[in-house]
């Protein structure tokens, strides 16, 4: 049998990867390496200089870089090996990885366990079919954020933002603070797709016009964006002819969705859950391949970093059990299925070994509502929006009370 070079390889040093690394080391896993493709650890956090991170995890409000630095410090104190500028090119079905870096060249490792923590990417213009020319001045919100906060460059002076994802709304405020004029934030839905707190603090507090049920009908400008034609849409998101309006601007930011980066996951032969965008996992974030774990935005796009780190810790627990051949699963596996009103659920299955945290999203905005977990429990929430993840805990006890024939729990919600 092939000897394993590493007990644990973690791909990605964002909030989930770092949390997994810290937890794994605390549990006693020594032979572990974190591979990071960027030149600095922290994933996307170093460019998220706004505050609002860590309220759950550290019980205080931190900026993105501060949140990252807490974990980077912990990792350093624990002597964790974070290899920077190191891209994992290939992930084999046998849990081998091929890594390339400038200073160490190409290396391959066989890994007893692996944690996939590659995060997500932004939807780009190409996949949106926005008509018009192809000038400079079109950015994803995250690209613009990096330009301003890392490179020290202004993407433009007059911006229109398409989509009301969290990064888009945060960038509306950031651009305004830097002296640019944000002429409008357009959202095709009748409600913003990010968090309410961002809508209030980033748009309303700065008097930035929010145009719901609007989209971009055309981009203008040969060399640099010169303006966009915006159009109103009906309830079925079809543009309403005659409602076009030209807004002059030199910049168009896109904040229209995030896509988990699962190229390596697919390479390892894992199927992707089309509703969450990530691989299928159990309550310890183990995929259908034993020893291969996934956590954070690679699994499903979270709106809170604290939750991302928590998933990293769960993955580390799972890896610990696998490395030490501890009884990982007993009793029957239970499938967790999204049912009426619920658009996605992670994890998609669980054991009966421990408390299970479910992450759910509702299909449509709702007032006071109840989430039903099969027939075993229900929880009431004051309201719910697709942009906000709902977390529900199923206690171990409730799972163990299920009969051996109970192999599926359906998650549904109803307004009350």
């Amino acid at each position, binding site marked *: 049998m092939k000897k394993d070079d590493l007990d644990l390889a973690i791909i990605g040093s964002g909030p989930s990867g770092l949390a997994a690394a810290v937890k794994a080391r605390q549990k006693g896993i020594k032979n572990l390496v974190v591979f990071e493709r960027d030149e600095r650890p922290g994933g996307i956090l170093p460019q998220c200089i706004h505050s609002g991170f860590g309220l759950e995890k550290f019980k205080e409000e931190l900026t993105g870089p501060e949140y990252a630095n807490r974990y980077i410090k912990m990792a350093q104190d624990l002597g964790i090996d974070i290899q920077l500028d190191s891209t994992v090119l290939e992930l084999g079905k046998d849990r081998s990885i091929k890594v390339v870096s400038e200073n160490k060249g190409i290396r391959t490792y066989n890994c007893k366990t692996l944690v996939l923590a590659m995060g997500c990417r932004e939807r780009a213009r190409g996949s949106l079919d926005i008509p018009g020319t*192809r000038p400079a001045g079109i950015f994803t919100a995250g690209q613009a954020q990096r330009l301003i906060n890392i*490179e020290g460059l202004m993407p433009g002076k007059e911006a229109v933002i398409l989509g009301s994802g969290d990064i888009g709304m945060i960038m509306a405020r950031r651009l305004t603070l830097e002296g640019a004029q944000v002429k409008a934030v357009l959202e095709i839905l009748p409600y913003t797709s990010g968090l309410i707190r961002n809508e209030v603090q980033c748009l309303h507090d700065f008097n930035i016009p929010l145009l719901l049920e609007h989209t971009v009908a055309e981009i203008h400008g040969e060399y640099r964006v010169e303006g966009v034609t915006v159009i109103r849409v009906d309830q079925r998101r079809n543009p309403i002819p005659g409602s076009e309006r030209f807004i002059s601007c030199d910049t168009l930011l896109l904040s229209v969705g995030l896509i988990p980066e699962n190229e390596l996951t697919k390479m390892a032969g894992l199927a992707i859950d089309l509703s969450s965008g990530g691989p299928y996992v159990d309550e310890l974030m183990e995929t259908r391949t034993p020893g291969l774990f996934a956590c954070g935005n690679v699994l499903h796009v979270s709106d809170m970093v604290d939750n991302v780190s928590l998933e990293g810790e769960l993955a580390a627990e799972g890896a610990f059990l696998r490395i030490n051949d501890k009884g990982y699963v007993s009793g029957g596996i239970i499938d967790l299925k999204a049912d009426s009103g619920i658009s996605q659920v992670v994890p998609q299955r669980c054991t009966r070994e421990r408390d299970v945290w479910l992450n759910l999203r509702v299909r449509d905005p709702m007032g006071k509502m109840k989430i039903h977990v099969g027939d075993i429990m229900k929880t009431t929430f004051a309201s719910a929006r697709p942009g906000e993840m709902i977390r529900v805990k199923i206690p171990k006890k409730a799972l163990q009370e299920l009969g051996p024939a109970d192999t599926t729990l359906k998650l549904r919600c109803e307004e009350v």
Partner: protein
Amino acid sequence: MNNEIPVQEGYSGEYDIIVIGAGIIGSMIARELSRFQIRGALIDKEPFPGFGVTKSGMAQIHSTDFCPPGTLKGKLCLDAPAKFKRLAGLLDVTYREVDELWLALESSQIANIEAAKERGEGHGATGYEIIGAERIRELEPHVTEKAVSALYIRGLGVIHPTEWSFALTENAAQNGIETYFNTSVLNIQKAENRQYVIQTSRGAFKTKSIVNAAGLFADEIAWMVQDHHIRLTLRKGSVAILDKSVSHLVRHMIFGTFSETHSQNVAPTAHGNLILGIHYTKTDNKGDTSVDREGIEKIMKLARELVPALSKRDIITSFAGIMAGNTMTGNGDFYIAPSEHAPDLIHVIAGAPGLTAAPGIAELVVKMLSDAGIELEEKKAFQEKRKGWPLFSAALLDKQKEMIASNPKFGHIVCRCEQVTEGEVTEAIHRGAGTLDAVKHVTRAGMGRCQGGFCGSIVLGLLSRGLGIPPQEVTKKGGRSFIAEGAMGE
């Protein structure tokens, strides 16, 4: 690429031949001319070769089956795949062999493919075979079950035309052809001794002869020498590119039906994506390269008729190109002819399949110049080979290790989607790729699924460093297409 050579006020010397337009045809001609002892120059208004109509086609090297009997283009397309294959070796560029399946989706369409076979063979091409449903399924399991028969043509290919234009231009420059980019032709005047003065945005050139290979703008060049009979007909062709994760669905260039409004085609690209097309619309605007929602819907509908498993969800980008025909030939043929008013000026007005015919066109143009009395004596020192740079993502493990050993920057992945390294990007910049789009076209950095979302700012930094300019002066595609509108606090 001599981007920054200042053109002298007045004349920058006297040339024997100037080629206007560095698209695939102009750069092929320039490279062919570089065999001879002439003083020649290639000028183009774009910052980089192949950035006009060359950039936005299906990029396929066909056989002669699309060319009507008796046409010039039928002659020029003959043996094109073999010519491209040979050039690929010499120029160190990508040529991917792909076979063609032209499907008949109902028995009434079988006559179409039989006619195509006859057409192709009429021009002297070989390798055609009509195959049945079972064989189609063997070759291409994901093709629609409706396919009853197909014209199967082996030994064709796909390329990335911008990469080729760049390589051809480099090879021409290696052999003494001067290249001037960002150089728009403003006027052409006749001077003494049967010479011309070409006024450009960067000064004037004096030359004995001119090749007008200005593509979409060939009519405007022609009008400068009173050839007002030259008229182009324009139509826009829209296409879409899919994520590599679905590339296994299609291995051949697959064709279906053709009409005024479409050429039904699904095919692999040179770099392993799938390309879907072509939806045509009328236009009279040469700059109209926008794609609308309806266009995307049409493209998807056409593609799914051929390969039902294709999905709109996998589109990573879409684009359009303006295709030019002409009114002079009447039957869709190329118009390659001397000017009616200006001696020693040759108009090269192609159209589809201009890419396929490019090597043949270059040979023809050289012959026409020679027939016109231009002295063309072969150089002894002609260097037919040009060296590219290694592609990290395509290299085998040992080669990758060797690359990193020679330059550690080949170990730094800049574009994660296409696995393009800093070594490749830096080399491209050093060799003349001076804009974000030029880097993208010759290295593929930014061409993958995230469309430059992650690598854009890294390439911006490398361009700034490589060109020795502040980042806010780096452009997407020349002109005023600045990426950033200034540094913070300005």
